[in-house]
Structure formats: C-alpha cells, structure tokens
C-alpha cells in the first residue's frame, strides 16, 4: 500500500576494496583487529618458540623481577611469565576457535533447518535450545569436565555445547528475517530447491550476522576457558593457561601481586580484542545493527 520507497536504506556495497577502506576508518575494527592479531601471533609463535621452556621448574629462579632476562619476571616456580603468557594465548585461541567451530558447525545447520522446515522440527530444535539455555553455562561446564575428567579437550566440548544454541538461534532468526524478501520468491519461481536457495541466497546473506556473533562467542569462550582452568578443570599443567596462572597467582597475591596482573591483562586484551572486532564488523557489514549489543 505504500507509495513511498521502503524505509530501509539501499544495501551497502559489497566489493572488497570499499569494505577494506571503510574498515580502516572504523576505530573499533582497527583496535580490535590489532589486539586479536597480537594474541594470535603470540599463540602461534609459542608453538615453535618461547623464551624459556614452560614445563621446567627452576626454584632458584623463582619470583624474579622484571629484567632484560625475564621481561615480565618469573613466577613462584621459576617459570618465565612471558613464555607462560604466550603458551596461554595458544591454549585460549585453540579452545575458543574449536569451541566456536563446534557451535557453528552444528548450530547453523540446525537453525537453518528449523527456519526451512517450520512446524514440529522447528519446535523441537527451539525447545532443545531453550533447555540448554536453562543450564547456567559455566555450571554445566563444571559438571561436564568433572565427570569426564578435567582437561583441555573436555573443556572445549563443554564450551562448544553452549555455543550450539546461540548459533542455531542467530541462523534461524536471520533466515526468518529474510523469509519475506522477494528475491527468495523469485528464486523459488526459478525452480530452485530449498537447499539450493539456502546455499545461494540465505547463507551469504546471514554470513554477516554469523561472523559478528562468532567474534562475540570467541571472547566468551576465552572467558569460559579461563574460568574453568581457574577452577582446575580446564587445561592441566604442564600446559599453560591464563586461568590457571591466575589461580596460582592468587595464593601469592600478598607477596607478589604482579603475578595476578599479567594473566588478567592478557585475558582482558584478547576478550576486548574480539569484542571490538565484532563491533567493528557489525558496523561495517550491517549498518542497521550499529547500536545493538549482543
């Protein structure tokens, strides 16, 4: 009935160069990308090289102050803190990437299926989602890791499970928001199957939403891993983890409070990085969503 043009703005340009130019102007994106990249490089480097071995305890070198030899000093067991932080970055990133990957690989198809096959199937998928949401996430992760034994892999699975409903919800919501759009009708009239339409039209058009959500989930996963490791249920020594470092630092906080600062800053650094990256991407890819927060 509306004679005037529809109220939403014409879609933004999608060529790579203009997106890249806009990206470099977005403060959130640049800061976020730099922070995330920094953590990523530190983690990757630690696979090949760290200044000192992190699995060798040398009590004679314990609680060294900052120096050119030990950039951030050493902990109560004489381990080099910089090396521990680098190895911790590796743990955080691996856990976060795999956990979010699990969530996406299972959640997105489920969400798309629920959107495509409305009715009973949708109802089942969404109710299962609600059920998972009803379990306070970290509490359940504690349950899972303690039942199957503490360790990095179980932590990944526990965190991953709670990413599934998040991605299912985002994928379903995005697909349903597209469902009235006339280009999907046009595709149907072109004889395309639901599967083909999903692959050709729906997924590319909700990719933005998924990318933004993924960066937010990455930061939540880093926080969750740190929490589990802090409780002693995540990464086990001799592997380093920021959460575990905080746990060990806590007992020393009266004598060496700096030990608690470094891993804390590392967590804030990386979580802030992925959050800002998500905000920046949202601004770039979906201007309408600019003011929202997840």
């Amino acid at each position: 009935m509306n004679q005037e043009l529809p109220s939403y703005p014409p879609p933004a340009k999608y060529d790579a160069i203009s997106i890249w130019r806009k990206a470099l102007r977005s403060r959130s994106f640049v800061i976020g990308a730099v922070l995330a990249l920094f953590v990523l490089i530190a983690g990757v480097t630690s696979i090949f090289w760290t200044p000192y071995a992190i699995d060798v305890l040398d009590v004679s070198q314990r609680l060294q102050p900052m120096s050119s030899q030990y950039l951030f000093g050493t902990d109560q067991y004489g381990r080099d803190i910089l090396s521990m932080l680098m190895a911790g970055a590796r743990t955080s990133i691996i856990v976060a990437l795999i956990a979010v990957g699990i969530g996406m690989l299972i959640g997105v198809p489920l969400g798309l299926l629920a959107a495509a096959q409305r009715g009973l199937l949708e109802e089942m998928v969404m109710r299962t989602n609600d059920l998972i949401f009803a379990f306070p996430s970290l509490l359940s992760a504690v349950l899972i890791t303690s039942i199957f034994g503490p360790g990095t892999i179980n932590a990944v699975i526990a965190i991953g499970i709670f990413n599934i409903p998040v991605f299912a919800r985002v994928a379903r919501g995005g697909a349903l928001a597209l469902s009235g759009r006339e280009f999907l009708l046009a595709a149907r009239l072109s004889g395309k199957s639901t599967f083909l339409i999903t692959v050709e039209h729906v997924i590319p058009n909700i990719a933005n939403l998924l990318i933004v959500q993924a960066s937010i989930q990455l930061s939540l996963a880093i926080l969750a891993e740190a929490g589990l490791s802090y409780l002693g249920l995540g990464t086990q020594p001799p592997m380093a983890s920021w959460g575990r470092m905080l746990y060990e630092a806590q007992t020393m906080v009266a004598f060496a409070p700096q030990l608690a600062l470094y891993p804390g800053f590392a967590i804030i650094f990386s979580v802030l990085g992925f959050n800002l990256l998500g905000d920046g991407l949202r601004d770039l890819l979906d201007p309408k969503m600019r003011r929202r927060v997840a």
Partner: protein
Amino acid sequence: MSAIFSARDLCVSINGKQILRDVDFDLERGKILGLVGESGSGKSMSALSAMQLLPEGASQSGELSFEGKNLTRASDPEMTHIRGKDISMVFQEPMTALNPIRTIGDQVAEGLRWHLRISRKEAWEQTIDVLERVGLGPEYGLMDRFPHQLSGGQRQRVVIAIAIACQPKVLIADEPTTALDVTVQAQILTLLKDIVKKEQMAMLLISHDLAVVAEMADTVAIMKDGVIVEDGPTGELFDNLSHPYSQKLFEASNHVPVPRQEPVDERAQPLLKVSNVLRQYPLSRASIFTRRQWHRAVQHVSFSVAPRQSLGLVGESGCGKSTLARTILGLTPPDGGSIQFLGKDPFAVSRNDRRDLQLGMQAVFQDPYGSFDPRHTVERTVSEPLHLMRSDLSREQRRKRVHEVLESVGLASADANKYPHEFSGGQRQRIAIARALVTNPSLIVADEPVSALDVSIRAQILDLFADLRDRLGMAYLFISHDLSVVQAITDRVIVMNAGRIVEEGPTGEVFSNPKHPYTRMLVSAVPDLNEALRKRRKKENKDTQ
C-alpha cells in the same frame, strides 16, 4: 485575509547538504495549502521544519513566523508550549506513530494534560470528546485499547485526535493517507477537511498525489529538489502550469500508455484457468476448548486469462489478492479448487512438467529493493530463472540472453556486471521485469509492480509494460490496489473484496459503470484529478464573481 503562519526564505541543510532552499509559503485560517512533490523533494522536511522537529545535524535560516514569533529562533522549551497546542502534526504511518505499549486514551490525554494542566479526570473526559470529534465515539470503546487492536484507519483517526486535542491553530499533515486503503483514504480526507472548516484551522497538506491535493487544497505549491517551483490557487495553477517540471508531473499523473493495437481473442483456449480456488489459514485458538477457526483468505475464486490478455485484479489490503497470486505462481497449493496453466495443473504434474509451466509464468514484485539478492550481480539475478532450463543453455548463450532482455527493457547490456544498489528505483523495476522476461514466458504475474515508484517513473514503467505487451505478445495478471494503474494497462478487470470476486468485466465498463456496491464505493473513493479540478474551477469562479 492575512496569514497566520508563514515561511520566508526558509533554508534547511542537513550535515551540509542543502534540503530546502528559499521556501516561502503562507497558511491562512480555514484554508488548506497543498504541498506536492516526489520523493526526495524536501516536502517532509518542510513539515518537520514547521514543527521545529528537524533531525540532528540540521541547520536552518530564514523565517517561520507564527503570532509574531520567528520559530527558527525559538528555543526548544519555548517550542514545547507551541507544539501540540498551537501547531500540530499528523504523520504518514499510523502503524508506527503510536506507542505500542500505552493505551489510546492515555496517549490522547497526555497532550491535554501537558498543555492545559488539567486533572486526570478532566483530561479523560475531554479525551472522550476529542475521540468523538474524529469519529471514534464511545461505542468503539477505544480508551483502554492498545494500538495493535485498532485498524489502520482507526489509528490514523487517533493520530488526528492527538493532533487536534488542544484545538491548534495550524495543522500539518504529512502524507496522512498514503499508507491507507482508498476507501479509508476518502474518509480520512473528508474528516480532515471538515475539521479545518469547522474549527477554522490553517492546514498544510503534504502529498505526492496530485489528485488528493487538487481535491483538498485551496492553494498548491509544487516542490522539486527543495525549491518551490510554482504555486497559486489550485484551479488557476493547474490550468496555467508554466514550469516544465510541474507540467511533466501533471502529465505523468494523467498518463495512459498507448492502447493495445491488436484485439485479444477472448474465445481462444485460456492460458490460465483458475477454478473455484480456496485458500484458508488456521487462526490461533482462543482456548483449547473452542473449535479451531479458519480465516478464508480466498473463497471459491474462478477466472481465466486468455493468451495476450492483460487482466487486472484490484482490491484493498487484506482482500486476498496476494494470497491468490502466490497460489497462481505455484508457491502454495490451494486448499480447494484447481489451477490450470497451459492446460495443466502445476500442483499435479511431474517435476519436469512443472518446470515447463514455471518457464511459462514469471513474476514481477512490488519492492524494487527487496526483490534482488544484494550480493548477486544483475547478470546473475536476471539469469536465475534460466536455472529452469538446466543444461540446455551454454554459459555464452545465457549471457547473450541476459543482454537481450536487458536491452528490451531499456537498459544497457553493460549493466549486467553491476550490482542492484547501483540503480535507481525505476531502473531496478526494469531489472525485475528483465528477470521475468528471460525465460520468454507467456504470462507475467505482476504484484503491485509500480506501487513503490514515484509518479513520473511509474508512467515510464507502465509504458514499458504496454510496449512489451504489444512487442512480445505477453499476457499479464496485474495485481494492484491502485485503480488508476489497473485502468491504464488492463483489458479486463476483477474486483476482489474479502476473499471473493465481486465484479468482473471489461476494464472500461467496470470503471465507468460499476454494478456491485463495493466496486461503486471503490471507484468513487479514488480521487480523480480532472474531476477535482473541474469542481475547483467552478468554486473559484464563484468566489471571484
């Protein structure tokens, strides 16, 4: 008679971009000034400027004088005493103009209490009166209702009630009926006219529709790109349009594409035959103890389209025309009755046959923004229906075909590599038509194909439809709420109301001599530019004598 509100040299720019330039107008008591223009002309900004509700980043110069005050210099606290009390506004979208979580009574009473500082009880009583003045008497029991429980027309009446509650001296209406059905539009326009006369308000009526303005306004100003190009008393102005833009606008509003050259053979085997089609939706149950109710969107509808025939389907929102279109297009099966296209039922044939039927019937939709995947190039978009032909076409042949159809809708073949966002609304609709043409169909279903377009562009697209009809021998099923569009392009017309066909016949006959009361109401509700001007001239002659 002197002006109660006037604009002089009004300039507005937003973030450095000039929107209005040297705009002058006067509003007089009991008179209506019509401000006409196409989208982007700055007419809405004029309204917001008069209310001093300009968006962030706006700067203005010039004068807006009201009762000796220059409003462009008034502070916001000063304006809060004027807005809603002396100068009020009615907005375009009644669906969103009301707060969804507060009651109607509450929202109308709010302005009364704010300006008149009266008690809750007094405000409540006055609110009942105000609602009665806009035709929503106590029998509707709206005071405790929420906006979502009202129809579009009722909501617009509530918006008007809010505006006139404190008996303002100036009323500004920005496209007050654009979002409404024609019959409701007619009622709302009458209401506004009555209020202006009875309460001696001065009114600024903003519209894209020349017919509405000609019917309502005593004086008219035509706006383009932020400048008033021409203005004067309505009848006189339209008789002596001197500016090329106003002439173009006037012609486009009256535009009728070239009539059909060769007559249609109506006795030929019908291309599309719709028999007794029924579509119904389950309503959500009030409780588990009641029986499930069904909403019958389309009730036993039958008609047929002959080859090369152009059939119009008119009706107001919710009459079932879009539901019917989806069934005809094969998107949702009917709950009863059958569809025959090219002699076959698309819901009963094999996959391959169905594909052939789909090749023969394509569609053009309303929304020039929503009908393309923003990530696909024009070539990919236009060639999408060729998917139906699978392996029959090589890549090169596809490309050639896309170039062909782009040229036949008046675009260049070089446009194939661009993205939809690089085109204007009218060009996009050409791309949509190209996509429908690419399989060389015998029938095109066009669902409100020009409703989102400005008048001048609408005329061009209608010409294109007429041209394709004559050149390619296409049949159309033209679905629209806009009678003038259907009148311009179709041979036969079907009128739908509440899921049923109430009248059917040759287009000219149905419109000049409607038989069914609903059709009669519909036809009489449509504002007619020439008819309005004739009346206007008579009145102006009387006034000058």
